[in-house]
């Protein structure tokens, strides 16, 4: 089974040899299961000049309870792209790990990386595979952003793709947010986003938008100064993906909070 000529896609290979490892292939008993597992909440992504920024709050909720204070929802998909997940946490983590292996597997088998659109399409079909579970309340929605290495204008190489439970991808212009607090985060971004932002400005803007989401959405966690838990902020540029260190995010989050002491509306 390993030596068949087969495919360069790892999920296609799994569907032959170990279909039980694909989240969409499991038979679920009928009925709603929405309250069964923790939900991951708000993610924002911003296209900047020469890169993209993605940030996520750290809260996972189960109904009215906080299931986890320091969950990590933004991850590198490969060397040049980022993926954030909202929705059912367990399935989200599983899909994200599978997506990482999918991209790495293709790169190793073919000796070349997938195009950014190819990666987004691949993720869309993986999300579509989870449609049955999504209809029973176990939906996962990712946000995907990365650098298009083939872009003619390097300043506009950062691109963002959103999805719904039936797949996608939908390319977004400038910025996007997903998850329960996305309404508030997007409203904040709508007023503050300008094209041609630098990566550093976009990082600050992302943290501000998450603060606004946490301000109005109970399922989104704001910067937790007492426990020193800050949003996960990642960037993808032509140099690769980078996760801001705890020191960097704490400095930004503290300055955002300080700004809100003066003006709570930001």
């Amino acid at each position, binding site marked *: 089974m390993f030596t068949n000529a087969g495919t360069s896609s790892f999920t296609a290979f*799994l569907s032959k040899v170990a279909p039980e490892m694909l989240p969409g292939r499991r038979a679920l008993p009928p009925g709603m299961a929405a309250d069964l597992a923790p939900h991951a909440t708000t993610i924002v992504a911003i296209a900047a000049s020469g890169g993209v920024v993605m940030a996520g709050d750290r809260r996972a909720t189960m109904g009215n309870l906080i299931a986890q204070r320091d969950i990590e929802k933004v*991850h590198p998909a490969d060397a040049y792209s980022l993926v954030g997940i909202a929705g059912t946490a367990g399935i989200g983590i599983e899909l994200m790990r599978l997506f990482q292996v999918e991209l*790495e597997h293709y790169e190793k088998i073919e000796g070349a990386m997938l195009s950014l659109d190819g990666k987004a399409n691949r993720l869309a079909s993986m999300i579509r595979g989870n449609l049955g579970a999504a209809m029973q309340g176990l939906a996962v929605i990712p946000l995907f952003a990365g650098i298009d290495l083939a872009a003619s204008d390097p300043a506009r190489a950062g691109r963002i793709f959103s999805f719904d439970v039936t797949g996608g991808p939908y390319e977004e212009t400038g910025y996007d947010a997903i998850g329960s607090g996305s309404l508030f985060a997007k409203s904040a971004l709508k007023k503050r986003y300008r094209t041609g932002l630098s990566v550093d400005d976009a990082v600050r803007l992302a943290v501000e938008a998450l603060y606004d989401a946490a301000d109005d959405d109970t399922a989104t966690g704001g910067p937790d100064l007492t426990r020193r838990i800050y949003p996960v902020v990642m960037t993808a540029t032509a140099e*690769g993906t980078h996760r801001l260190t705890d020191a960097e995010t704490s400095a930004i989050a503290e300055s955002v909070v300080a700004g809100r002491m003066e003006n709570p509306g930001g």
Partner: protein
Amino acid sequence: MAMQFYASPEQIMRDRSELARKGIARGRSSVVVSYTGGVLFVAENLSSTLHKVSEIYDRIGFAAVGRYNEFENLRRAGVRMADLNGLSYDRRDVTGLALANSYAQILGAIFTEQSKPFEVEICVAEVGATPEEDSLYRCTYDGSVTDEPGRMAMGGQAEAISGVLKSNHRPDMSLADAVKVAVQALGSVGGEGGAARTIAGDQLEVAILDRSRVGRTFRRITGAALTALLDGDAAGGSAAEGGRAQTPTTPTEEGHKPTTSAGSADLEDKPGDNSGT
């Protein structure tokens, strides 16, 4: 009813071995050696796209000689096995030994069950924390596996090349020295009247498993970096190697989180450190 002529199992095995051995000896050779900074693969290869040396997993590389379609099939199988295990368990649970054993099973089954054995010989190399902890496994056409002591040669006149390697190679060599020794060994055969010859850089496929890296350690050395290594004196060599061997990156907790992509730039050296690879 047609009668089959009797052939003893011994005869059949001998014929198959001979076929495989002849096929492997016809091709060009590959060399795999340990050095201070990792594991070095050098293969004589006229093509720059049909690789004889490839990445399997974070710390595991693959080198092969023989028929391209056959070892390419094995390489893909290896990537699939490694990725499947890495996803099911953890990235750290993918080992060279497990892979070498699987290859032995596949090659052994093909040798005894099919009418034609695979005319290939492959090396599964896993880079360790020190040169002593590197493991090089040689898997041959009949399914046997051998653990090689830090250096090995395959294909063509492998024995002659091994002889040259054995007398010149030491595990504490720098990358530049190791490349020089490997290329010298490959060029020690095949010249006019059995004399030594020089192999040009564009006929070599060179790659390393970089000991100091976290995550995916496999890097190809091509173009200017390769030329610098081949013609360079010691200075050129150390420039291409960067200062990395002296200051290995400490594997961090971050690098082992199951949800961290091994391709992440956070696992690489900081920008500005000219890797040359």
